[in-house]
């Protein structure tokens, strides 16, 4: 089993999986308790426009994705703070715009169409040392923010009205939280890709929420789950020669459905 670690690209993939799990467990927990799955999806897909623009202009693709994701995060944060229900149309439009604009820009870039698929479905097996450092840096930022502002994020997520009456700048922390979501999305794009990102942000925290009694324990538990999904997915991808991103998500979703069945059975037993 451990022979797969003799390849450098596999070592990198396992390190990247660890870094992705750190980001998605913290961010995913905030996404799930704040019911912001659609926001995360909008940012992820919207960021494709920045990726396309960066390729077109000759910058690093991930830099473009990062900048546009943060811009979209600020935009969504400011517009949705007051009326969280009314934001879905705007996010839907942004979602589609990002994809369309990104694809068009890639089309217009001469001789460039190879990596399109890799950003859609992820390419954790081709992650280089530089990417790993960037991911580690973003991770550090997310972990630091989560530690320093834990009580504020908790208060704003739980009851932002009460938090603001207590003098917490609820709007600021709400926007910062969405920016962190954007960073988490960017970290995960290379590993699982735009399309599958949502499952990694939602499945582990959803399962963890049932057994956690605090945001911190929910984050910790979803980190473990996420790591298990990533590592077994990677191992499956290597063993059966299948796409890594899809393999990770397959493991996660199958576990998720088994978990739901288990919960259902346990629930009906308790009632009976």
């Amino acid at each position: 089993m451990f022979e797969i670690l003799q390849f450098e690209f596999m070592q990198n993939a396992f390190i990247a999986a660890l870094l992705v799990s750190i980001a998605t467990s913290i961010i995913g927990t905030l996404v799930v308790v704040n019911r912001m799955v659609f926001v995360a999806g909008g940012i992820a897909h919207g960021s494709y426009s920045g990726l396309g623009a960066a390729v077109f202009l000759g910058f690093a693709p991930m830099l473009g994705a990062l900048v546009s994701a943060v811009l979209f995060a600020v935009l969504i944060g400011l517009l949705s703070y007051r009326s969280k229900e009314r934001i879905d149309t705007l996010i839907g439009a942004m979602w589609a715009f990002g994809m369309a604009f990104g694809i068009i820009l890639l089309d217009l870039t001469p001789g460039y169409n190879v990596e399109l698929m890799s950003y859609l479905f992820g390419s954790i097996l081709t992650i280089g040392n530089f990417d790993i450092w960037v991911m580690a840096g973003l991770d550090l930022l997310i972990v630091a923010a989560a530690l320093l502002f834990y009580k504020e994020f908790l208060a704003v997520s739980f009851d932002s009205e009460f938090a603001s009456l207590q003098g917490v700048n609820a709007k600021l922390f709400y926007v910062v939280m969405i920016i962190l979501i954007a960073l988490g999305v960017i970290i995960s794009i290379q590993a699982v890709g735009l399309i599958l990102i949502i499952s990694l942000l939602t499945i582990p925290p959803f399962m963890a929420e049932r057994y956690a009694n605090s945001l911190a324990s929910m984050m910790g538990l979803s980190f473990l789950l996420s790591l298990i999904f990533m590592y077994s997915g990677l191992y499956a991808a290597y063993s059966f020669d299948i796409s890594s991103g899809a393999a990770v998500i397959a493991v996660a979703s199958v576990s998720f459905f088994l978990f739901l069945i288990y919960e259902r059975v346990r629930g009906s037993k308790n009632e009976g």
Partner: protein
Amino acid sequence: MNHIRIANLGFAYEKQPVLEDVNLEYDKKDFLALIGPNGGGKSTLLKLILGLLKPDRGSVRVAKGTSLAYVPQNTNINRDFPIRVIDTVLMGRLSQKRFGFFRKEDFAKARKALNAVGLEDFENRSLAKLSGGQRQRVFIARALCSDADILLLDEPTASLDSESQIQIYELLKKLNKSVGVIIVSHDTTVLLGYATKIAHINQKLHLHGPLGKKREDFHGEHVCPVELIHAGCDHV
């Protein structure tokens, strides 16, 4: 002394008038109930007092050094949120504006507040697993924890069974010895036994009372409400 003074207050949601020419003086020794029909402006008045909304006309003045704390409607908060009781109460300490984590003295205050609402053994319990009445008491503890002088509660007994309703009212009556209580409510029958002042709000405000010392007499004049009999009404 008047801790809250409201003068000629007017408020409209997008030109739809909600409150007109509201005048009210409130002293924190009073247990004030805001009653009235749905959409009559009760909750809006509460939010104006708290400063969550800004008045279109007139003014809301809160006496210097008087701090308010809000107990929102229980139903507005995500029931499954993973949080312990003590962490919920600690949110009342956010106004201290300290950087990083809560301190020992914050925990001490939170435990004292839990004690005041009779939930001292619940601090490590998961909020999601508590009953509606217990949850409501946690939210009252959270408000107390902020060293508030006046508690403002929005329908604290909504969706509670009558026994838990009485427990909440009894608790508020007890707390009213040291803090002010302003409560928005539907169940007027039960409130009659507890409120010392009642403001009926339907765009305009009509104040009934002061019932003041006559609280018990006032209660005696009325037929004991059904809910009170259920909880063992000792006044009849």
